[in-house]
């Protein structure tokens, strides 16, 4: 432990910061995309229209039974093939994360929508709002308010998951750390540093979630 080399971290700080920015960007975009697509899936499942709910249910259960790494491989291979030209690993990773996490977000959102009392929907319909207006002005705002802590928790999990883009060599924080580790021959320092950075960010996030829980009456 005495020969722990802090210089290797200091010297590569700009490079590591670039990697962390990419991790955070990927997390942010995938959270937004995942929530949008996840909301669509949740509404489809609760729509009461059999083909739609069946389709969404199958999608969610299929995605939830395969590992994220396999999904990343799928889209790394599939996206360039479908578009007929290479588009770089960032976009295929972003598509993979959005579609993968949407399945998990949709389960959270579905529970959130179901937590809004039926009376609210009936009252909305009685005042003459149509289906979309009911969802837009009555159900979803209340559902999302109830879900915020769980959505943030899922966001933290997603941030940890982004480290898996390592398998397609996309230069996120994890990949960059391992590049520095190898080129400088400092595996111990770099991987411990990476663990500390992930821990600080995720632990701060979970403390924030705990405050959200306390701020709201259950």
């Amino acid at each position, binding site marked *: 432990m005495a020969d722990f080399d802090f210089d290797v971290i200091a010297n590569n700080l700009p490079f590591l910061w670039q990697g962390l920015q990419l991790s955070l960007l990927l997390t942010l975009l995938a959270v937004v995309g995942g929530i949008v697509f996840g909301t669509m899936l949740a509404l489809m499942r609760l729509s009461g229209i059999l083909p739609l709910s069946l389709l969404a249910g199958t999608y969610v259960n299929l995605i939830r039974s*395969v590992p994220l790494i396999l999904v990343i491989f799928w889209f790394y291979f599939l996206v360039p093939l479908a578009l007929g030209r290479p588009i770089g690993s960032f976009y295929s990773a972003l598509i993979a994360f959005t579609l993968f996490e949407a399945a998990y977000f949709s389960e959270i959102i579905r529970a959130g929508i179901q937590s809004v009392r039926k009376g609210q929907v009936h009252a909305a319909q009685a005042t003459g709002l149509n289906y979309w207006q009911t969802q837009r002005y009555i159900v979803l705002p209340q559902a999302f308010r109830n879900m915020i802590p769980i959505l943030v928790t899922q966001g933290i999990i997603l941030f940890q998951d982004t480290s898996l883009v390592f398998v397609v060599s996309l230069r996120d924080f994890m990949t960059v750390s391992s590049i520095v580790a190898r080129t400088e021959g400092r595996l111990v320092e770099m991987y411990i540093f*990476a663990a500390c950075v992930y821990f600080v960010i*995720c632990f701060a996030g979970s403390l924030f979630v705990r405050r959200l829980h306390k701020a709201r009456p259950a």
Partner: protein
Amino acid sequence: MDYNWNWGVLFQDPYLGWLILGVQWTFAVALAAWVIALVVGIVVGVGRTLPSRPISLICTAYVELFRNVPLLVQMFLWYFVMPEMVPDEVGRWMKRDMPNPEYVTAVIALGLYTASRVAEQVRAGINAVGPGLTNAAYANGFSVAQTYRYILLPISFRLIVPPMTSEFLTIFKNSSLALTIGLLELTAQSQQIAEYTFNGFEAYTAATVIYVCIALVATLVMQVAERYTRIPGYMGSK
């Protein structure tokens, strides 16, 4: 779309064998890690609910530490960093003579990581039993050990069977991370077939179908288990 379909490739000589080998490694990693996850997870989860402050603090620290670092980083810590941190003799043995280093490392990393998730379920289960029964046990003169042995654990273990099902499925999915330290489990084998044959579609479909089958079988088995372990009167509570 320019693509040469060839589903036969999955049944050709080396590739079918690779897939079967991959499935075997996936099961070997997931099941061995599950044993570690259960044992450590139950100890840590129970520890968090104990009246002793130091013990519950240590157990809370364990859960926070293992939950807030990505599993991939943990894999690398066990694989690359651990041999450097232990005394030289042991480190040299780990690097040179330890049998199946990728497998052993993957099992330890995945097991201890999943243990933190199992511990959370165990703690939630014990808390779900409620203070009424615990206080009743103490009022009857039960010691702490007796309260856990006869009241809290028998009830909470049955309560947490449904959430443990999804943890059990998750450990199969997470076993795919073993490929990052060079273990050729199912996902790695399908990726290797894709690289050798350029039939990525077929290779990834095969892996996907196998994972879905594992999930279906595990869900069915656990549904049966849930029926036998359900506690009448506790139905509504999770």
